[in-house]
């Protein structure tokens, strides 16, 4: 599959009418909240997902699939029920929010539970709005559910697939739950018919990043405030813009906006 890029090549002084760049995957959209399985991989909440962590928007396959991976071998981790996907506790009314890296003409959005379509939102074969959210009443489906959300494109045979693990009626207040025991590796997670109302299984590590220790070595995943001092590669730096640190934001010539050499 090759992707063509529309680009004013005159700026490069090139004669060709367009430039084709090989691309390993298409990339266009996914459900970000409640988090789809690919969103959990991209967030680092579920680890060792393989390349989907870099491109959660890429689960594209021909229309009509009922699989979390759309039937694409490259994304098969998304259909691996042994991965112990954490289910989000939600109330009966659930709003699904999409991230779209390209605004394709949309036939419709469809939502399924156990192969049954439970909601359809017409896209009018138009380009979607900046933010796409759909609210669905899931009151008829209490307990643990694996919901399939599908974005059907209007002008191609393709669709985008997302599985979202939910604990319906489990209360919308608790952000996420993780089962305390691993599910059997051969069978899908057991679905309780009623949600245990006050039994959030385990609190996930959603607490904010740890505060730094003064003069400590720089580390990723730390919440630094303006004025904090770190050491990095034997030198001292002072934080000049509060942030939670990530790889490539370590003190360097390229991050002077964040770190002032002392």
């Amino acid at each position, binding site marked *: 599959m090759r992707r063509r890029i529309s680009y004013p090549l005159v700026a490069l002084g090139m004669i060709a009418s367009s430039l084709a760049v090989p691309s390993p995957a298409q990339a266009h959209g996914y459900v970000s909240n409640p*988090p789809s399985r690919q969103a959990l991989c991209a*967030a680092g909440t579920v680890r060792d997902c393989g390349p989907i962590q870099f491109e959660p928007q890429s689960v594209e396959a021909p229309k009509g699939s009922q699989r979390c991976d759309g039937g694409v071998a490259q994304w098969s981790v998304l259909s691996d029920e042994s991965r112990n996907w954490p289910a989000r506790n939600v109330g009966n009314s659930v709003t699904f929010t999409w991230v779209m*890296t*390209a*605004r394709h003409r949309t036939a419709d959005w469809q939502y399924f539970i156990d192969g049954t379509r439970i909601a359809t939102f017409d896209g009018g074969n138009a380009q979607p709005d900046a933010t796409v959210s759909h609210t669905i009443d899931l009151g008829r489906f209490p307990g643990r559910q694996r919901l399939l959300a599908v974005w059907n494109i209007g002008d191609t045979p393709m669709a985008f697939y997302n599985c979202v693990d939910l604990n319906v009626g489990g209360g919308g207040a608790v952000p996420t739950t993780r089962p305390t025991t691993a599910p059997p590796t051969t069978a899908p997670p057991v679905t309780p018919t009623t949600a245990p109302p006050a039994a959030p299984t385990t609190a996930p590590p959603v607490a904010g990043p740890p505060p730094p220790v003064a003069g400590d070595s720089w580390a990723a995943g730390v919440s630094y405030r303006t004025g904090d001092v770190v050491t990095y590669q034997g030198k001292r730096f002072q934080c000049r813009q509060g942030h939670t640190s990530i790889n490539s934001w370590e003190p360097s010539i390229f991050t002077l*906006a964040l770190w002032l050499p002392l």
Partner: protein
Amino acid sequence: MIVALLAPLLLGACGTPAAPESPSTSGTAVAEIKAAQDYNDTDVMFLQMFVHHQRQGLQMTAAAVGRAQDPELRTLAEAVRATEQDELKMIEGWLRGWGKPTEVDTAPNLHADHGGLPGTGPAEIESLTTVADAEFDTAFLSLFLAHQHNAMELANLVKDGGRNADTMAFGERVRASRQGEIQQMLRLMSK
């Protein structure tokens, strides 16, 4: 048609003189970081597309600095804005140093072949100024997640086809930083 095609070339040729070539890492300003002179068309295309992308991103983070409801999100937007302002100055300097225009006439579009508008356009950015306060964080996160996913896709261009060591190293930093930002944003989105 030919005149229209030539005009940008002429503008480019008559543009800002090339900056001094001596490498400088004095540590005082990112704008002083120079790129080596060994580059190819993909390096130039990537940087030009990225200039356009960064200018959009700065509009979006500026909106978030002013309107984000979640203080954590506001802090993230401030940090992203600060780092991306420096990135923009640096890569514009590289293009000028190579005698290349920093402007492109048409918004670059990775999805033109299959009917897709890019994730971020003027209408989407404008929506960040009109959306209700209560809906701002979700709207911003939806748009900026897409924007940073697209930044990672753009960086793949130079990873696969670039030649200039500085541009390729910049592409790697883009991939790493945007992935980290996406992780933070996805957690904020669903907290």
